């Protein structure tokens, strides 16, 4: 037997074991063998998920300094803090696949990796904070709850923690909108306007329709994904309709109606051209969001360099471990632990 055939035999044993694990709904862990494509696909999806948390801080942080009551301000600050924490969990989880946070951030900053299209829309009123909580976080939860059972262990575990906090944010967003809807006429109008602007972009968060989704079939076969984009979108619409009624707000879709036969709500056509434009970088805030992220990173470079230089001095040489090091993102402090300590 030649070396080549031995390798081929070993690879097919690995593949068979991997396939059996996935079929049996077992978790794939960082040290397990996995197909290169599986690894690459997870890195792409998890990094983009992490980036979405980080970019997603911006539209909401836009209102921290203008929050209209101290209670709401505290809730919003806590939420934006949680998002930074979620970004940290997800970068850590992605690092278990061999990617580094610095490399992933570099890909975000240079536009080589994407983030959720939704964060390219502007927050134009206080009610947008509520609409983001209710609709955007609601859509995210619908997408993410099935990920708690995803085949890759570190991702699934990150999602369990994240979904708990997201559900809390979503309830707070809903409650914010409810207060506005039941408030003065001007507040009610503000709430309705926000829902009108965020409804369709929220439906786009589930991604392209099933017949146009490039990664879906493979992701489902690997059990990274459990349901199709259209299934999840339908589930979300069915959840939102009664919630909108309870809020006393309408959804901006004249074609939205209950379909007895299907047992689901029918809804109008999504503007896929707008979706493609936003993904291509031509949404209302794409340029601004990336510019702010890059500026924060560039303006912070002297701080990260200082921390690295100090850590190297304190430990007696460059690169040696130091217990208080790693604000430079080198990962010597477990991110999860740090987030937990400050949560």
């Amino acid at each position, binding site marked *: 037997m030649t070396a080549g055939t031995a390798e081929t035999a070993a690879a097919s044993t690995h593949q068979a074991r991997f396939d059996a694990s996935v079929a049996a709904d077992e978790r794939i862990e960082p040290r397990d063998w996995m197909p290169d494509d599986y690894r690459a696909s997870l890195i792409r999806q998890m990094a983009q998920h992490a980036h979405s948390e980080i970019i997603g801080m911006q539209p909401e942080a836009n209102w921290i300094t203008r929050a*209209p009551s101290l209670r*709401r301000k505290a809730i919003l600050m806590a939420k934006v803090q949680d998002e930074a924490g979620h970004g940290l969990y997800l970068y850590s989880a992605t690092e278990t696949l061999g990617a580094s946070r610095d490399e992933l951030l570099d890909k975000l900053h240079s536009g080589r990796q994407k983030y959720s299209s939704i964060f390219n829309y502007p927050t134009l009123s206080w009610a947008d904070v509520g609409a983001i909580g209710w609709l955007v976080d609601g859509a995210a939860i619908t997408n993410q709850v099935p990920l708690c059972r995803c085949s890759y262990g570190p991702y699934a575990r990150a999602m369990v923690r994240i979904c708990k906090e997201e559900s809390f944010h979503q309830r707070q967003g809903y409650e*914010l909108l409810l207060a506005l809807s039941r408030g003065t006429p001007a507040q009610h109008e503000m709430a309705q306007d926000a829902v009108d602007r965020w409804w369709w972009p929220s439906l786009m968060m589930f991604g392209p329709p099933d017949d146009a989704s490039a990664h879906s079939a493979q992701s489902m076969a690997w059990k990274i994904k459990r349901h199709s984009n259209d299934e999840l979108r339908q589930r979300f619409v069915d959840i939102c309709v009664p919630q909108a009624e309870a809020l006393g707000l309408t959804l901006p879709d004249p074609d939205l109606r209950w379909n007895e036969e299907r047992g689901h709500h029918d809804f109008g056509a999504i503007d896929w051209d707008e979706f493609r434009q936003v993904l291509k970088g031509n949404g209302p805030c794409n340029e601004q969001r990336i510019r702010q992220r890059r500026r924060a990173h560039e*303006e912070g470079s002297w701080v990260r360099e200082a921390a690295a230089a100090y850590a190297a001095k304190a430990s007696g040489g460059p690169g040696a471990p130091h217990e208080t090091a790693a604000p430079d993102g080198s990962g010597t402090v477990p991110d999860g632990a740090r*987030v937990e300590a400050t949560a």
Partner: protein
Amino acid sequence: MTAALALGDDALVLSHRLGEWAGHAPVLEEEVALANIALDLLGQARTLLSLVGDEDELAYRREERAFRNLQLVEQPNGDFAHTIARQLYFSTYQLLLYGQLASGDSAFAALAAKAVKEVAYHQDHAEQWTLRLGDGTTESHERMQRACDALWRFTGEMFHPVEGLDVDREALRSAWLESVTGVLHRATLTVPDTPDTGAWSAGAGRQGLHTEAFGRMLAEMQHLHRSHPGASW
């Protein structure tokens, strides 16, 4: 109750300034840390202002001249070194002040006992960063020194008397100076030798006399609330 207003305004205003960092921090861990400190301070502010009246009425309906916070906490964020210098000066003051109050029997004893745990964390955060920046690179050292120098003139105000605040101000002052001096020396920084207070800023914030940036900060903070009189949120 002037003391509750003064301490509450300090926490409220500094919390707001730290909130401005959201989405702009140099590293993700600092997004979490700065927001965390801002939240602690906002919690303190809400408790203190509620001792005086309605927290939102006090935060959103007062004019600049009615705020009693130190001028130090209203100073713009500047670069990360300025934010850290402001944190070092103020968190050291708060830690010592709440330490005194927690062991006394004033109206603030219970609040101080809770807050002192949070503030110890804030002081540690500021101290660690002062060391990293002061003893990091040449650039970070220079920036940190500039920040410490620029904010020094606002520190004397912390030791002016505040009506209703029963503390040993001399002990507070000497303990503060000892702590801050120790950190600056360990960070290879020089303690500023300029006056810690000017003729104008001597106790000015506590009397409602603020620096120019403060009015703009309040305009942003209060705008939405003031645009909807009588609304609840």
